């Protein structure tokens, strides 16, 4: 990997996400920022995908189960070339191809529609199993929120993945320690997420979710689970706050200052 290029991609994804939300006037900024780096690594260095052939049956798949962070994924897809970057400004406009929850029928490059938390891991397991049953050599990545792990369906699938010993799917947990109503510790304790997956017998790694080298080195091992420790709102200065940052109103001034700060940090 070229770390500089991947970090640039992450910065670009953040800026495009902020631009999209600025255009809409609001957005799920916190959780979109915490996955910006892993999206950059996946689309720059890891996944075999072709923006000109988004439905290639032999591609690698990404399921963003925390579907409310679709603006982050749309930014990554625009950066990858699935559609023009300017199109991110149509986020949630009437008739848009880019709704703010993932929609595979509307957005080129979105593999699976999501929005009802807890379902993405099951759908991803079906994609992985379907590919394996058809002899297709492909890897499936699914990104879950740590708050999302409240949903019991995740643990049904964890047991299923462990039982089947599936090796063509990696579950990535965005452990930003916050959910809509506050810190996960206060809303409903997560305990040790990695240990919970390990208790199922799933090969589980952990890394800093904002260190692109660490993310790359973990993902190339194709673990069953990667718990990436992140900060909700990371990289967007107005969202790097201890208070509510799940969903924010975003003004032109806030967006401009945040993008300038992203560029400053990239060159610092």
């Amino acid at each position: 990997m070229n770390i500089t290029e991947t970090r640039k991609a992450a910065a670009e994804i953040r800026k495009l996400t902020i631009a999209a939300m600025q255009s809409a006037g609001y957005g799920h900024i916190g959780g979109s920022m915490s996955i910006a780096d892993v999206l950059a690594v996946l689309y720059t260095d890891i996944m075999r995908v072709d923006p000109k052939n988004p439905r290639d049956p032999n591609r690698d798949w990404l399921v963003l189960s925390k579907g409310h962070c679709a603006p982050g994924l749309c930014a990554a897809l625009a950066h990858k070339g699935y559609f023009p970057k300017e199109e991110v400004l149509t986020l949630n406009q009437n008739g848009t191809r880019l709704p703010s929850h993932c929609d595979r029928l509307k957005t080129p490059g979105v593999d699976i529609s999501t929005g009802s938390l807890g379902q993405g891991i099951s759908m991803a397991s079906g994609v992985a199993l379907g590919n394996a049953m058809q002899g297709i050599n492909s890897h499936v990545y699914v990104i879950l929120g740590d708050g999302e792990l409240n949903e019991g369906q995740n643990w049904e699938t964890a047991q299923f993945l462990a039982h089947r010993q599936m090796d063509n799917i990696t579950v990535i947990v965005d452990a930003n320690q916050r959910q809509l109503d506050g810190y996960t510790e206060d809303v409903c304790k997560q305990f040790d997420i990695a240990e919970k997956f390990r208790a199922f017998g799933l090969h589980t790694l952990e890394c800093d979710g904002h260190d692109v080298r660490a993310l790359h080195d973990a993902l190339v091992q194709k673990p069953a689970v990667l718990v990436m420790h992140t900060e909700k709102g990371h990289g967007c200065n107005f969202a790097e706050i201890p208070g509510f940052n799940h969903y924010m109103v975003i003004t032109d001034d806030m967006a401009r200052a945040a993008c300038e700060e992203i560029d400053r940090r990239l060159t610092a």
Partner: protein
Amino acid sequence: MTYPLEQIKLDTVELRAAYCAALIAAAEQNDRIVAVDADVQFSMGTKPFYEKFPRRGVNCGIMEAHAVGMCAGMSATGLVPFFHAFGVFATRRAFDQIFLACAYQDLNVKLIGGDAGVTATMNGGTHMPLEDMGLMRTIPGATIIEPADAAMLPAAVQHMASTWGVHYMRSSRRNAMRVYRDDAQFTIGKANVLARGSEVCIIACGIMVYEALRAHAMLAQQGIRATVLDMHTIKPIDEAAVIHAAMACGAVVTAENHNAMSGLGSAVAEVLVEHCPVPMERVGVFEQFGEVGTQGYLQEKFGLTGEEIARKAIKAMGRK
């Protein structure tokens, strides 16, 4: 197309056996068809499929939410999953997964719900689907089929296997009254006209088709000529058949092994009120949960009988 009433007997073939044979036949034609189960393979009768195609069956264990979500993912890769569970678990338990994972993103998933309505018998109220059709009717684009017997069931399976979309088929697992002759023809979405009369129209599905034929005979004894429609496809409902029968007869009775609200009766009422308002009565379960009992006891208790259909037919005729 049907046997004379006096020749209609309990079939020697179980519906689950007819189902599995039909699924195997479909799978022999289409190698993308796979079976998915949630720990009721024995009850649903799908074991022979797994024996025939060991690499094309997935028993997930008792996790319907996961299983239906997984079916959606499998469909996204081009497979055609058939998911089996008791009707309450195939629909109510996994409703959000059916709605969003399967239907919302236009995937091709088939849901088979066993133990329709009172055929759940000794499993009682917790296992008695009386609202599954109502739930599924609210899903845009979903198709709902309830075959009357083992002669019709393979046509439903063949249609599901060859038509894109979310389909739900509910039926009993056990032996049903064999209404249809072997050579009967079925078109999904088109009602079968089992009798033509001019005074009242009975519209039924599933086990109530036999009861409708019994009601037809009871009414005939009183000199009342009734039309009988087997509305095996509850959604999309055959509007033309409903309107035609309502115009010809001027009164309608629906009969379903389901909550009288939200299922066949509601679907027919919606057509009538918009196109051809005529007096209508419903036979079904009114504001009650299921309970344990033999099928005969439960049909009597909830009024799912030919006698009740005939009574309501006369009542509807009296409101003309």
